[in-house]
């Protein structure tokens, strides 16, 4: 492996932390969802790094399924954003304080 596996893990950890910060701090729903995608990419990096380190293809197969589930989650999440925008145009995350309105 061209770099020690610890470097790949450190990169994955840093990217995951950036995704967590983006999810917790941003006020726009779509940017929160994108931060989830950053976190999922970080996990995929870690999976691919270990797959290479242990010479086992399972890590890459799991990363493939993570990408598929991320696509499904993006679809449903953005469908929710569209429905939200239709009922309450311009709503930010801070405005969503009630379960039903």
């Amino acid at each position, binding site marked *: 492996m*061209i770099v020690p596996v*610890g470097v790949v*893990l450190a*990169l994955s*950890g*840093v*990217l*995951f*932390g*950036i*995704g*967590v*910060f*983006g999810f*917790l*701090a*941003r*006020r*726009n729903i*779509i*940017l929160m*969802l*994108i*931060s989830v*995608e*950053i976190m999922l*990419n970080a996990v*995929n*990096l870690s999976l*691919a*790094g270990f*797959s*290479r380190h*242990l010479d*086992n*293809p*399972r890590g*890459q*197969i799991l*990363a*493939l399924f993570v*990408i*598929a*589930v*991320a*696509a*499904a989650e*993006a*679809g*449903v999440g*953005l*469908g929710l*954003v*569209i*429905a939200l*925008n239709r009922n309450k145009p*311009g709503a*930010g*995350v*801070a405005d969503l304080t009630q379960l039903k309105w």
Partner: protein
Amino acid sequence: MTFPAAQAIFYYMAAASVVSAMLAVTRKNPVHSMLWILSLFMHVAGIFLLLSAEFLAAVQIIVYAGAILIFYLFVLMLLDLPGEEARPRFGRHWPVAAVGAMGLVVLAWLAQIQTLDSTQVGVASAPPHVAAEDPALGSLSGVGTALFGPFALPFEMASLILLAAIVGAVVLARRKAGS
């Protein structure tokens, strides 16, 4: 992949993906954030290539950068973009978020350095070789054989998940009759 510049290229991709992610979560304009996310996806695909995950790199570009990101951009166009830009980017609690994120990363790092330092990593995880001749790691034939062999059930379940997501997105986003 052991050509001489591989290490330098890896460190460039790593640095570029971290910088892209940091810029993506801090931009005022949401469209600029999306473009930095595109840069992140591309550099992560490059790292996959360097880690012998060629099929994963291709899927990353096609699905993540080519479908998911475009989908996000479509929905972003529904927003009132000048209004979004005028509002503050972060909630008032953002230092708490930064400290929390850094704490999580530090905790994860401390939790794994114990196991990585031990020399038992390779022994306990010898993969069960299915065939006498194993295809190269990350090659298309290897991934395809795995997806139609040992991982056939998760493969079918993934298609079910995608079907459920499609139906859910259509139901959520359509206009209800009479509303």
